[in-house]
């Protein structure tokens, strides 16, 4: 089956039905390996001690918060330019998941910051720009819930998503552009990662596990959203029939 065939909601539902067990199995397997690596194999950091273990959930959460907004931006282009039937379904289903991972990024960062920086929160460029992304996620969810017609809500949310995408490079490069308490990039940088392999490998394992979890949740949430729209159209048909 070609990827374009999934553009049909019924075909997507069939695909989701077949793919979900495999996605769940792959996610559980990846978490088993990732958690074993993170909790029992990775050594303590020479400066930060055992608090480095927070990184194994903080960094994947941060990655997913940004990845999810990127995905919603592509879906928004699909809504506005190509009017793709699944584009706003994909965007709407992704928003709560992205908000949850961004919240987790902020919370775990706070738990890591208190013992290492001496503060739970600092209004520096990286932390503030991630907080702005979290608030924009909440705004998007509110917008989806406010406008009753899904296609109208989809177009309005797509515009807001594309405006919010401006924040993505600000988050990424905030540690280079401004003097921040947050450390500069140590994994995705031109000169290669600055983290020792003994910690980098568990970090990658956890990132793969979190990404598989995101994909599983997103496919499941898209399936639910398609079913919700079917319920809505059937309720409208029923109301029309009852109205004469």
């Amino acid at each position, binding site marked *: 089956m070609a990827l374009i065939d999934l553009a049909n909601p019924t075909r997507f539902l069939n695909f989701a039905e077949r793919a979900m067990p495999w996605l769940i199995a792959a996610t559980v397997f990846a978490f088993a390996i990732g958690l074993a690596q993170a*909790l*029992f194999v990775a050594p*303590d950091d020479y400066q930060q*001690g*055992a*608090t480095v*273990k*927070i990184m194994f*959930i*903080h960094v994947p*959460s941060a990655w997913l918060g940004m990845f999810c907004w990127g995905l919603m931006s592509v879906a928004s282009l699909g809504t506005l330019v190509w009017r793709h039937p699944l584009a706003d379904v994909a965007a709407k289903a992704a928003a*709560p*998941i992205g908000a*949850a*991972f961004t*919240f*987790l990024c902020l*919370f*775990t960062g706070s*738990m*890591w910051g*208190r*013992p290492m920086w001496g503060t739970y929160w600092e209004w520096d460029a990286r932390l503030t720009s991630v907080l702005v992304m979290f608030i924009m996620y909440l705004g998007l969810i509110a917008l989806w819930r406010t406008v009753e017609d899904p296609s109208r809500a989809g177009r309005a949310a797509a515009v807001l998503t594309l405006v919010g995408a401006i924040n993505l490079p600000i988050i990424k490069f905030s540690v280079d552009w401004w003097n921040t308490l947050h450390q500069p990039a140590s994994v995705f940088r031109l000169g290669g990662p600055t983290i020792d392999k003994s910690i980098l490998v568990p970090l990658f394992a956890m990132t793969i596990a979190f990404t598989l*979890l995101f994909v599983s*949740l997103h496919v*499941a*949430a898209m*399936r*639910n959203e398609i*079913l*919700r729209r*079917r*319920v809505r*159209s*059937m*309720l409208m*048909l*029923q109301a029309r*029939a009852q109205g004469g």
Partner: protein
Amino acid sequence: MNLGPHAAFILAAYAAAVVVIAGLIGWVTLDLRAQRRQLGDLEADGVTRRSAALKEPA
């Protein structure tokens, strides 16, 4: 596994991850049940989607 003097912060971070992930899994699972139940109720009432009705043999 010795988590050192900052064990409470590490445990709080992992506990939050468990709560958030469990919440997301619970959300998609309960939502799926609710949508399927509503679809079942509507179909039991004889409501059919237009596209599904069109596929029915004449």
